């Protein structure tokens, strides 16, 4: 599905990512862990093309997408939900969903507004509300739903649980499981291991712009020194 090799990204002259490499299998969930500033968001931004990588390869399905503009990468089937959510504040929920709409893809059940409202029932009642006047959790759901309207095969989620109340968090978690059951792959960036524990097939740990540990959820749970070294606050 996705293979990343020796990816290097920069902000201006500052190199942020150093030879990042990993792979994601179809229909699986990978979680990217790391402390503040480890470079998780930058990995996602490099994948979607917001921060075009200076070196390295990104293979998505059969195409090399490194260096393409974001809209081409999105159309190729990668969805991106940014850390700040970035819903269009003046647009209503329904209009926000419309901005993400793209034709269905073979082999995936197409997302419609109706199916998304079933996935996030809270949104259904807010259909006509401007996104700027919704709570953080509702905006997070909308941001995910908006991305799904494009029928992506791989979804990049940047800290979907950040700042959410436990109840909201559980809803997002359920949505992530539902997505995986649909056959959508996910790459989720998170600071703490809590969210990952619930859903991850694979865990990638980052520090200073490089992947320093990878393995299964169970392996991370057993490796106390690694957790201490890379993840303890």
């Amino acid at each position, binding site marked *: 599905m996705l293979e990343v090799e020796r990816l290097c990204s920069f902000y201006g002259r500052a190199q942020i990512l150093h030879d990042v490499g990993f792979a994601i299998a179809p229909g699986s969930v990978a979680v990217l862990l790391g402390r503040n500033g480890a470079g998780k968001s930058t990995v996602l931004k490099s994948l979607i*093309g917001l921060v075009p990588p200076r070196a390295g390869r990104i293979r998505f399905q059969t195409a090399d997408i490194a260096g393409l503009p*974001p*809209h081409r990468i999105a159309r190729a089937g990668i969805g991106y939900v940014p850390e700040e959510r970035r819903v269009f504040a003046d*647009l209503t929920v329904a209009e926000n969903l*419309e901005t993400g709409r793209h034709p269905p893809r073979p082999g995936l059940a197409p997302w419609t507004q109706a199916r998304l409202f079933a996935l996030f029932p809270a949104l259904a009642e807010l259909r006509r509300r401007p996104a700027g006047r919704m709570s953080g959790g509702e905006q997070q759901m909308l941001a995910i739903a908006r991305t799904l309207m494009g029928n992506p095969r791989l979804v990049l989620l940047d800290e979907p649980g950040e700042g959410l109340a436990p109840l909201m968090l559980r809803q997002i978690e359920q949505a992530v499981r539902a997505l995986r059951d649909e056959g959508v792959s996910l790459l989720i960036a998170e600071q703490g291991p809590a969210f990952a524990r619930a859903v991850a097939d694979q865990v990638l740990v980052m520090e200073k712009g490089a992947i320093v540990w990878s393995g299964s959820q169970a392996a991370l749970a057993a490796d106390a020194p690694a957790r201490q070294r890379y993840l303890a606050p």
Partner: protein
Amino acid sequence: MHGFFFLQLLTGLATAAQLFLLAAGLTVIFGVTRVVNFAHGSLYMLGAYLGYSLITRAPPTPVGFALGALATAAIVAALGAALEIGLLRRLYRAPDLFQLLATFAVALMAEDLTQRVWGAEDLALPRPGFLAAAVRIGAARFPLYDLVLIGLGPAVYLALLALFRTTRWGVLVRAATADRDMLACLGVDQRWLFTGVFALGAGLAGLGGALGLPDATATLQMGFSSVTDAFVVVVVGGLGSLSGAALASLLIGLLQAFGIALVPRSTLVLVFVVMAVALVLRPHGLLGRVPDETGRAAMPDLIRPATPALRALALAALLAALALPFVAGPFLLSVATEALIALLFAASLHLMMGPGGMASFGHAAWFGLGAYGAALAALALRAPLPLALVMGMLLAGAVAALFGLVVVRLAGVYLAMLTLAFAQIVWAGAMQFGEISGGDNGLLGVWPPRWLGGPVGFYFLALALCVGGALVLRRALQAPFGYALRGARDAPQRAAAIGLDITRLRWAAFTLAGAAAGLAGALFAFAKGSVFPTYLGLGRSVDALLMVLLGGIGTMSGPFVGAVVYTGLYDALLLATDAWRLVLGAAIVAMVLLFPQGIAGAAARRVRA
């Protein structure tokens, strides 16, 4: 009295409808692309000319007229799309001054090309019966066509609202207005969205130009005059707000109608007062929002004390300037005198625009006020030359100080537009109040006294005052005042936190710049022996802008280089070709695309690298 009121109301509504058609496209384009399209007036002008050609060829019936106007809108829309693809697409992330400059250049070229295609004569549409028809209102007759316009304005407004609210395209456009990058991440290719928006805005301008034909003639001047009107409407309404533009059109249209009827000469002042009051109360316009400046390049800034090499170069230039009168003929000497005056003029704008961070599109106001002040002092008060120069400078400085109270709180494009509008109003005032200013004929016979020793003496006077003045400005920038000013520009919050009074700083810079430009204008009056309203005109404001940008806004030597290169280029062009607007426009476009940092800026980078 009732009849009078009703008639003025209708006249005002018709004016408002036309203003809205003119301004709607500008505000739509700005709202989405953040480009202030100076060429909008040219698209409107093209609408008028093309509309003339098409409508006069169509059958003289209402249907023929409507089809002609629609075809015009379609053609102008296509031209707008071409403009976006060919030029603006490359400039979206550039500082907004460069977009203004590039579109200004397009306006210059458009004027030249229009003259080549349609000739210099004004074109008046013949008025078949249906256009000449009128309805009786009380004792007066009101044109039927204006009633149609009164209906069309709101119809277009509602159609646009529906387009943005209900269509997928409209939703995407509104999303792009809010967050372009996010929209791209959702798989939308915004380039075509922007092209579409540009086509829409241009099409509206074209439609407005064609629909304006029955009430006005197509003239070559309408490009620049209409863009000023459009700016006023859009700035008062709030940049990017369609409803704001509608509201402002209504306000200004009605004010003009009643203003003209009650106090015939009040309109100019009225419009300005409306704008000033609106912007003081609401600095982002009636319905505007605080602009989001993310993703936009800041102006490069390379201000430092001169290096030894630069000092040596400057000294050599000064020596050459001192020696010039002994080798040059009268023509070269007069060009050199003008270049010196241009230098001071450019340096004064640079102070405002570079370190002050206040882009002015109406810097000619101060230049012209200085010229008129000096000329009136010399002619009416018989003041000797030194006193006349001082009076010119004081007049410009005093008006700048007053006007500065209103505008220095504004930012970016709003300030640029307001200064532009102010200059246009002073210009129109000079045309209108002929008893004082001589109107179109200007003021003649403003010669330097004999004791100065003819052109050579005057050259030395200009050399002393202009180079001296420019050096004083330069010195001020290296003094604490200059640092504080730049601090206020780059980090206003921090500057305010350490106790700098930002408004006062900017006001002082504005006043100083106005006075220096006034001195340049006063000298210019004596250099030419006369003063004309063109000294106040848009063309001269743009000269100053070009000199500053040509030299590079972020360098202190920029205005020096820019003034000399520009004056030379301009005189050479004017002599060599009658297509100077075309050539100048093309040169500006090339410069904006190739040297976004100006000549001196590019040289400084070369040296540093």
